[in-house]
């Protein structure tokens, strides 16, 4: 396992970079925002991504995917981070497909992963219930009634809620908030009676939403995996999700840094370009060093997924914590070093800090993952 990209991966990276810069750049995100798009991404662009196979990039060939593994998906997410490209790559390809891969029966995988690969279906995980990521605290209840389950409760921060065809709702079929046992995953279609979807306008201009489930009845066959036994697969899928978000944050931070470094060479004050001031030079050099280190842990974590390594949780929390830290530092410095112009909506740099904090927050922020990292290290 070498921590370098092979030929195939390098080609994928370059073609993704070219495509996204043209079709899903910051300018497109601004246009989506200003048009008040409810779906939050362009269906046309997504269709092209599907045609390139991106919807199935990490899905095994047996289920219609490309089988490039998570290192391949990580490359796409990194480029999406660089361009702040809005698409269902996170909701469907990264999170939902991983969870289905972990929990689904062979039949469910065949059906759902193929539908994702082909672009026929968008799915999204509905997990969070309170201000913070706390999967064990899940309280949304699912009660068995005959051959059905009846779900009641609320979810927030459901990605691409307006566009998803089906939600994977994490519910409690037994136990109390805090228990590992009793957590279950249900497939709930967007049109199901009793399910209300409320669009939420978030700081990153992407579409997320809240779900309100009142007496939502789904057949037991909609269970993804065994009733009450979702915890382990969910944990693994969340680890993968966080590694994917770390890859996105890596791209985002690298781009924000490179734009800032370019600005340092261009902006003049006191008769010199400001990049000639050693105070700024040292901060830029420290950020560059941090970004190089960040890249290593992201690559290592992606490899750990693809190689089925046992310490995935440690890798995931390390990668997410580190990238949260680096993204926070770099985006803050990006604004500061751009000065007044960086504070204007007209300039693009502000979009980076907004998306960064959302990606940092999703599925556990710096504090969550540093704490988990310490726990996993036994102290």
């Amino acid at each position, binding site marked *: 396992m070498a921590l370098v990209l092979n030929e195939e991966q390098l080609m994928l990276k370059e073609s993704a970079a070219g495509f996204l810069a043209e079709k899903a750049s910051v300018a497109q995100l601004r246009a989506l925002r200003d048009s008040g798009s409810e779906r939050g991404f362009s269906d046309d662009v997504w269709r092209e991504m599907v045609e390139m196979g991106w919807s199935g990039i990490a899905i095994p060939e047996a289920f219609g995917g490309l089988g490039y593994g998570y290192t391949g998906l990580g490359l796409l997410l990194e480029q999406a981070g660089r361009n702040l490209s809005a698409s269902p790559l996170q909701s469907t390809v990264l999170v939902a497909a991983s969870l289905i891969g972990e929990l689904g029966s062979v039949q469910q995988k065949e059906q759902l992963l193929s539908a994702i690969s082909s672009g026929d279906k968008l799915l999204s995980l509905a997990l*969070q219930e*309170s*201000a*913070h*990521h706390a999967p064990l605290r899940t309280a949304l209840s699912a009660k068995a009634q005959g051959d059905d389950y009846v779900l009641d409760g609320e979810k*927030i*921060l459901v990605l691409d809620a307006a566009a998803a065809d089906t939600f994977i709702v994490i519910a409690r079929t037994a136990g109390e908030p805090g228990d590992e046992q009793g957590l279950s995953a249900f497939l709930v279609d967007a049109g199901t009676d009793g399910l209300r979807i409320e669009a*939420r*306008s*978030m*700081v*990153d*201009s992407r579409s997320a939403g*809240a779900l309100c489930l009142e007496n939502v009845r789904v057949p037991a066959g909609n269970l993804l995996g065994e009733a009450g036994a979702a915890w382990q697969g969910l944990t693994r899928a969340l680890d993968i999700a966080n590694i994917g978000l770390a890859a996105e944050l890596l791209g985002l931070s690298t781009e924000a840094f490179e734009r800032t470094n370019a600005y340092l060479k261009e902006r*003049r*004050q*006191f*008769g010199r370009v400001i990049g000639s*001031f050693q*105070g*700024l030079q040292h901060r830029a050099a420290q950020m560059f060093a941090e970004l190089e280190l960040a890249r290593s842990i992201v690559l290592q974590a992606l490899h750990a997924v693809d190689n089925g390594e046992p310490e995935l949780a440690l890798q995931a929390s390390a990668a997410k914590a580190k990238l949260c830290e680096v993204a*926070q530092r770099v985006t*803050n410095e990006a*604004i*500061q070093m751009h*000065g*007044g112009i*960086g*504070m*204007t*909506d*007209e300039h693009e740099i*502000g979009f980076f*800090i*907004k998306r960064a*904090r*959302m990606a940092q*927050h999703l599925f556990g*922020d*710096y*504090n*969550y993952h*540093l*704490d988990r990292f*310490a726990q996993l290290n036994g102290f």
Partner: protein
Amino acid sequence: MSDLEQFRQDTRAWLEENCPESMRVPVRGFEDLYSGGRNPEIAHPDQKLWCDRMAERGWTVPHWPKAYGGGGLSNEEVKVLSQEMSRIGARRALESFGISMLGPALLQFGSEEQKLDHLPKIVRGEIRWCQGYSEPNAGSDLASLATKAEDKGDHYVINGQKIWTSYADKADWIFCLVRTDNSGSKHEGISFVLFDMDQPGVTVRPIKLISGNSPFCETFFDNAIADKKNLVGEAGNGWTIAKYLLTHEREMISGFGAAPKQSVGQLALETVGSDASGRLANSALRQNIAQYQLDTMVFGATMARVGDEAKAGQGLGAASSIFKYYGTELNKRRNELNLAVRGEQALGWEGEVYHGGNLSRDWLRSKGNSIEGGTSEVQLNIIAKRVLGLPDA
């Protein structure tokens, strides 16, 4: 009964009688602040009434001399007035750059004629002012400003562009730094002039910030006219006034570093929860909040100390730079902690459930604190050079 006690009783009685009930309601947002001007923004009709009543006694700016329309009150009387207003929850009647910025500068540097001309209108809220300082290519390096004022005998003709002119779209007049001479060093040849914004040569375009709409504008001068009698100080001596006002502005901005009303730690307990021993459950967050609260306490102690030292005639060198630097960094930290503590609640942008995105917008807005009024880097340069005596490269 002492004179001061008598003053307190009279003031109390007058306030009871004259302060409208609607002006005893706490300020909920910027819209509840009254800034006057030719076309005042009025959220409630009593705002103007209250301002007029107060202005009649000069109490909109109680410490300015009576000769210029102020209240002519002593420091003790100002304090009593403020206490009595607080007692009934009376809002301040008028808030403006005229009171906070231009007035002090005119009192220090203006001619008698200029003071008589402009200060009473500020007191009465008749004229609203804005500040024309920064330019697109003169940010941190303010002294390199290029807006040109050509001497035409009894007036100047002004051409150029300003940026970050707060409320320029609502202001009647501007106090403005212009270049009247290009021959010397960049700090020379700068002049401080006042002129009416309501003229064909002035165009204003509001700036939208990353946090949403803002008071800031871009302001363009295309042969704008300034009467020479409105040149403050000598031509070419504007930098002295500019520095005075920058120090003043730094002190205002550094106030952002003051401790918030609800402790961040308490707030975190509510959203993140505690462990068995009652401590905040997340130890990384606990450490960061503790360090922030500690620094806020230390910052507060320093503001108190510098206040005491000023009274005692001592002074902390470059205090305003330290405050500007530290206070704005603290405010940025507080806002980042707010995001960490409130989580999803702080990531909303619009809608009632997120209170219109006030948390995320405040967070984004705070990023500007260490840029506006002299960047953190400029403050550190000032400390390094003026206080520590470290040499230029």
